[in-house]
């Protein structure tokens, strides 16, 4: 297993290299000059501009520029944001905790809800409750997250006033207190739910079908014949079999959250990486765009890796593949 993991990790290197090449050339191809942010915009003197181009190395051959960017990048220097005038690493560091908090809450909500609803539906299939849950699932899978987000803001934040409509925390509360965390959780609930809605629906569905399928298997009949109560059979025997594949989805979740966060953060004005990314694209803040793109690509790779490893643990056959 270790060897497999190690090989997969090494396999990520060329992939990241390719992504970095693409990201770099995309940034080069972006309209406008990727350097214009670093040059005093009020100084239109061509000599000054030329001097700055030279100074910033934009006159070097492309591969030299790429090499410089990659080596800087690997040593943790992601460049300086042209919009915020601060190191991109710090900028990302500022927003990343928010996004991680959002993602973790979303995962938590997803799994708790999926388990609760999936268990119920799986144990009592074709009842009213099951049908209601099925209805929710269809909605969850079909309603695009941005539509759901807009509706959620409209109803829960404006009409019902249950949740705040923007931000990640109430500024007046001191950091570190319980209230502070309660405020953060209060702010993150709505976006996290919308972000996790799709996964919640698909996992519920998956768990339900798996439970129903497993409950027809021989080992269940054996247990029943031995006089084990049905409740215990579900909790001990069936669930254990059904949970395992569900856990392996975790890795794919990471990849999915990456993309989802952009839209969700935008709708809820939640100051995380996604919002920073949109902001940077709009403002031509290339160093930030490049760094975030690289980071998100790496996260997708890592997510897939985790998915594969979890899968390998659960199903040893695929290790050879």
């Amino acid at each position: 297993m270790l060897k497999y993991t190690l090989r997969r990790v090494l396999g990520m290197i060329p992939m990241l290299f390719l992504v970095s090449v693409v990201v770099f050339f995309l940034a080069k191809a972006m309209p406008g000059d990727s350097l214009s942010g670093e040059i005093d915009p009020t100084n239109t003197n061509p000599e000054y501009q030329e001097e700055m181009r030279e100074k910033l190395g934009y006159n070097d051959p492309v591969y030299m520029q790429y090499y410089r960017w990659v080596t800087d990048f690997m040593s943790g220097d992601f460049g300086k944001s042209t919009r915020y005038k601060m190191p991109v690493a710090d900028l990302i560091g500022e927003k990343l905790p928010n996004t991680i908090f959002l993602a973790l809450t979303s995962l938590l909500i997803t799994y708790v809800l999926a388990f609760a609803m999936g268990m119920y539906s799986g144990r009592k299939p074709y009842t009213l409750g099951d049908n209601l849950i099925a209805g929710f699932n269809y909605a969850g899978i079909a309603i695009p997250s941005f539509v759901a987000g807009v509706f959620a803001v409209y109803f829960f934040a404006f009409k019902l006033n249950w949740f705040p409509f923007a931000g990640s925390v109430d500024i007046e509360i001191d950091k570190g207190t319980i209230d502070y965390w309660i405020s953060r959780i209060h702010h993150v609930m709505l976006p996290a739910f919308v972000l996790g809605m799709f996964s919640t629906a698909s996992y519920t569905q998956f768990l339900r079908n798996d439970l129903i399928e497993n409950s027809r298997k021989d080992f269940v009949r054996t247990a029943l014949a031995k006089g084990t109560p049905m409740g215990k059979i579900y909790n001990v025997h069936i669930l254990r079999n059904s949970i395992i594949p569900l856990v392996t989805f975790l890795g794919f979740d990471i990849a999915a959250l990456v993309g989802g966060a952009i839209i969700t953060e935008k709708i809820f004005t939640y100051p995380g990486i996604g919002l920073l990314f949109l902001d940077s694209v709009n403002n031509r803040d290339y160093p930030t765009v490049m760094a975030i793109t690289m980071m998100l690509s790496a996260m997708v790779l890592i997510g897939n890796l985790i998915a594969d490893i979890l899968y390998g643990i659960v199903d040893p056959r695929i290790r050879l593949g």
Partner: protein
Amino acid sequence: MKRKSMLWLFAMILVLSAFLAACGGGGSDDASDSDSGDSKDGEKATEEQSGEPQQGGTLTYGLDATPEGLYNWAFYGIATDAEIIEFFDEGLIEYDENLQPIPNLAEWETEDNQHFTFKFKEGVKWHNGEELTVNDWVFALETIAHPDYDGPRYANVETIEGAPAFRAGEADSISGLKVVDDYTIEVTFDEPRLNNLTNIWSYPMSQKEFEGIEVADMSGSEQVRTKPVGLGPFKVENVVPGESLELVKNEDYWNGEVNLDKIIIRVIDNTATVGALQNGDIDMISLQPVSAPDVEKLDNVEVVTAPGLSYYYVGFKLGKFDNDKKEIVEELPKYQDLNLRKAMAHAINREEWIDAFFFGYGKPVNKPVPTAHWIAADDSEVNVYEYDPEKAKQLLDEAGFVDTNDDGFREDPNGDEFVVKFSHYATGNPTFESRSQAIAQYWEEVGLKSEVEMVEVNLYYDMVEKDDPSIETFFGGWGTGTDPDPSALWKADQLWNYPRYNNPDADALLEQALSVEEVGDDQEKRAQVYAEWQKTVTEDVPMIFIAELDEIMGVGENVGGFSMDVSGYNNPAEWYLEK
């Protein structure tokens, strides 16, 4: 105390960054939130609501765009940041409701508009407890003139004698700055100018606070980003980047007692503005015209307006500019016909358009200077192009633009198909498309076939600036500052003269207005020269002046002591909350 003393250059950048902020904040935004100034208006201020200011309380101030977090006058880039700095820092000079400079932290004297003596107030303290001295100002000027300085303000220091040498590294200090004592300094400019005073950078920086920080690292330092200090009525207590700030009362404020205990500044999405005001989540916010009608319907909020200092226009590309030679090198033929331009101006129903897209929070502007500005000419002194489609048609007929092939649209005088191409910048805001479409429709109504092209905003200004051939007529906005000199936008040798307007007579008038010999200190005379220039421009129609917009604030009923005019709102120290 009045807000701000920004200059032409800033103002323009601000207008531009306001577009950017618009897409960042994801909303409908225009130059309307450019902070370049506001003006006196008949609208009621909140003072009349009650008598005595009350002490204490927390006021929540909303922002509908995300600040970049550069909380220092020397480094900030966008209007939103300036709106925040305004609460906790101030400058040496302020402007009155006629946009004339008045002393704030310092007084000045000059004989010749070249040599100035500034005397600072004594006993004014920074938030960190240090006393303000002239050295803090020198420090600010030298920071901006430093070669490593990465902000956009050098133009405001450049005119001080010796500043270019300092920037080039040839001198250790700026020779034009002579410190007499802690409170007195003599400043010498490279030449006498009428606008030397309004042009110079007037914000000190706490030298003590920035001790040991290289100029190159300043913009990223916590002294700028999270723990800024200032001289204003409030102190920055806490910053949650991109989201909110907490400001507390400055007990040692030099200019009177501060009423409020605390101001919370919160960033909210502009879709939430109305709801947030209604629920009392925020007490005050600068409104976009689109939200104002809904806010007016609220019982607990009042809408306060003041004329703004920015205007919208439709420009004609008349030539091509060579940035190396600094001159207009080529004349573009398509819109050279003066009658065509006049007809296109007469075709637009500006009142209707402003009502539809700005909900009445603005009015038609007839000259290249907002009406609230003191150099603005009276409408009777300039050529006004009222909405008059019949006149437009007549002018077009005279110019030879007639429909020769009966397709319902006019052909050009040679009988070739004539299509007006109108470009507008695009952000996420869907109304941009409809408002530009509306303008094109006005032209179609007088028989000119028109098409609209929406261009991504960053690309748009790039294309306009570089005279891209696909830009023919274009939508734009300029914010003007307190400095009346419009040279940077209008002279034939300026990059930002986007229409490539080339009239030596107009340029001569602009030069005359600034000349110490001819005009001197006579503001009256100066205004007259500018009026003459404005008449010349309106006769030539290089652009159709569309609208000047109001500055709009939504202010809770419980907020007192607030007023607003063309130069901005009053000192936040005077604001209070009714219990």
